[in-house]
């Protein structure tokens, strides 16, 4: 155990972040199971309403916000130091680590002591303990230092390699952190302008203002989770197969589309909000559908890579599919994650489709949607990548590898049963974020069927999650490193071509992104402030 904290500071940084992320995953997953059982009609296990909303806040914050952020921080530094092979600024990393950990602890304390039952979206005018907002601000500001460290490291590399193209994984990581900066500026404004005055001084708030800034952040946030997963697909899937990625250029174009389009589309979360101009809602719908095309580029690229590998291994027209290494959990996990993301994308398109939104908004359909996206496309990718990180970063042998082979399949089977039934329950009108779905016996019969079937799926994927967490923790505790180099995570022998004057021009894409953000958000913000704020007092009672 002790040697986890030996080695270069960069690696220790990555180990702490990734280890902490896995602990959060375990805790959040436990909350998930308790929620699942509590909201299933007829279940013998049921927590109280207060506990339910408390752990639901924990589930959202620990998994969607903290697990993802810490994992991405660790992964970024791990990959960038190995691929770029230039020094990263350690002071920035230290500041980043201290601030984010402190922020996470403050937020966790406020949630676990029941002082912040506001869910992870913390919509005003609900008021939580100031620790919750201060923790969130520290978490975000702290993470910026990792972003700065990466940007500086990249610039240093660029200086040494002025005419080489950017390696695809580095392009992905840069895109990730650019999107993160785009995303978090509005939420920092939101917290400083609306939430801290409310929490500290009891100031009144304009709910639409708070929500507009929040979703200005909330949508690019989901791309911040997704881009590292896509980066891992582009990077590791070809490596596991021993072929080149089908098209590096297409991969980069997909990332570029994410950089420029991920932000000016946040109003698709406010399609049924009063006070937002309908034409702007529609504009953001269209922009969202365009960013969907980036995901199609990704799917094409990966599938074409698979076909190339399968055919190289001797498969025919369809035969190439069985030639792929399905017993390799890192490969199978990532492909299953990609397939789950396909379903997530389809449900997402329905969510964003203007008036279809009012059928699914805030129903358990949404729960089905995000457990296939962040809950699988992202979480499963990170989990299986962790098998590789165990050997390459933690210097450990993965124990019970045969169980690790089953884990991705079990997870995805569970997720599909869960998400499908929750989606159907949503179409039948069952709400999300609700503790007791029987409504005193007034709920339609059909909900019970879906919720019970969904619970079966939930238990299955929770079991898969438990298998993963146990493998991870036990490998670290008992299985000291042997030289098992099944995995070549940090050892790229990519040939870098000459740089492409437009695609590899990150500066250009940042400029385009800023222009689009201004186009997408200047009118909504102008309308918001010109129609005059409608202030309402904060509410702390009843939470």
């Amino acid at each position: 155990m002790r040697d986890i904290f030996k080695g270069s500071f960069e690696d220790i940084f990555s180990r702490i972040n990734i280890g902490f992320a896995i602990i959060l995953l375990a805790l959040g997953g436990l909350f998930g199971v308790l929620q699942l059982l509590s909201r299933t009609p007829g279940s013998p296990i049921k927590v109280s309403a207060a506990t339910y909303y408390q752990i639901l806040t924990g589930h959202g914050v620990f998994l969607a916000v903290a697990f993802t952020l810490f994992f991405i921080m660790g992964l970024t530094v791990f990959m960038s130091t190995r691929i770029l092979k230039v020094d990263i600024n350690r002071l920035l990393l230290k500041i980043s680590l201290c601030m984010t950990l402190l922020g996470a602890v403050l937020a966790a304390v406020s949630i676990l002591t029941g002082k912040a039952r506001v869910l992870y979206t913390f919509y005003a005018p609900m008021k939580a303990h100031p620790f919750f907002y201060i923790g969130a601000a520290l978490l975000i500001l702290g993470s910026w230092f990792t972003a700065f460290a990466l940007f500086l490291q990249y610039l240093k590399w660029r200086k040494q390699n002025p005419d080489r193209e950017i390696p695809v994984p580095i392009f992905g990581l840069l895109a990730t952190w650019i999107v993160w900066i785009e995303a978090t500026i509005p939420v920092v404004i939101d917290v400083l302008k609306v939430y801290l005055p409310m929490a500290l001084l009891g100031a009144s708030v304009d709910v639409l203002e708070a929500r507009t800034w929040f979703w200005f952040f909330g949508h690019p946030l989901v791309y911040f989770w997704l881009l590292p997963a896509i980066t891992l697909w582009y990077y590791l899937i070809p490596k596991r197969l021993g072929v080149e990625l089908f098209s590096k250029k297409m991969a980069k174009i997909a990332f570029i589309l994410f950089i420029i389009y991920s932000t000016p589309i946040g109003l698709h979360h406010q399609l049924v909000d009063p006070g937002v101009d309908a034409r702007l809602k529609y504009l953001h719908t269209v922009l969202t559908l365009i960013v969907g095309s980036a995901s199609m580029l990704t799917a094409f690229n990966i599938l074409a890579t698979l076909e190339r590998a399968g055919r190289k291994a001797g498969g025919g027209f369809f035969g190439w599919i069985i030639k792929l290494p399905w017993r390799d959990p890192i490969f199978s996990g990532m492909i299953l994650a990609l397939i789950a993301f396909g379903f997530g994308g389809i449900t997402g398109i329905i969510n964003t489709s203007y008036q279809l939104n009012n059928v699914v908004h805030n129903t358990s359909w949404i729960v089905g949607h995000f457990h296939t996206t962040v809950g699988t496309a992202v979480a499963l990718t990170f989990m299986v990548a962790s098998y590789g990180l165990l050997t390459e970063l933690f210097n450990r042998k993965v124990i019970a590898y045969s169980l690790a082979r089953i884990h991705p399949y079990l997870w995805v089977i569970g997720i599909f049963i869960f998400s499908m039934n929750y989606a159907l329950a949503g179409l039948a009108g069952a709400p999300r974020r609700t503790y007791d779905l029987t409504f005193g016996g007034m709920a339609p019969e059909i909900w019970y069927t879906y919720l019970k079937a969904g619970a079966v799926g939930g238990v299955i994927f929770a079991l898969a999650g438990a298998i993963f967490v146990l493998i991870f923790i036990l490998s670290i505790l008992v299985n000291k490193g042997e030289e098992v180099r099944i995995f070549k995570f940090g050892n790229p022998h990519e040939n870098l071509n000459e740089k492409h004057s437009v695609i590899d021009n990150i500066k250009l894409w940042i400029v385009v992104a800023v222009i689009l953000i201004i186009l997408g958000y200047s009118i909504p913000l102008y309308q918001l402030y010109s129609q005059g704020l409608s202030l309402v007092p904060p509410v702390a009672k009843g939470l």
Partner: protein
Amino acid sequence: MTLFPRKLEEWYKTFTKEERNWLIIALIIALIMSTTTLTWHALDREHQVPVETMEVAPDVFMEKAMRFSMEYAGKVIPEGVDIYLAGVQFRWIPKELKLKKGVTYKIWISSGDVLHGFSLLGYDGTVYNVMVMPGMAYAVNVKFDKTGVYEIRCNEYCGLGHQYMIGKIVVVE
């Protein structure tokens, strides 16, 4: 800062045929989806996105809803009367609305405290959801073609009693 050191067409030519085609297909799909969603909006009368809104302080709106609720308690609401429906921890005011079949009503929906969600569920499978925002009222125009009971549930977390927030619309001849 040089943003475009090379000509655009030169840049375009560096794609292979497959790459170019797929890029175009992806964009066409996005455009088709955007136009269908707009056309659908024009054709589908069931799921309109409401557009009319009004700024209103939570206490003012609460008063309107209470007054409305007292005036029409147990009565069928006549045509042409604006309805005020308030969500407040943890109930709807009024708790029940009696509406006439085939008549279009305007329901002003807002909140007296925190965010709530207005989720209408019909026995015929109708599902319709909009946000209930304090400080801002949303006008939802409804017309029911069949008699029967429609339930209103809150579907935005609003506090510990959130799951008890149930209301009703009864449609009569």
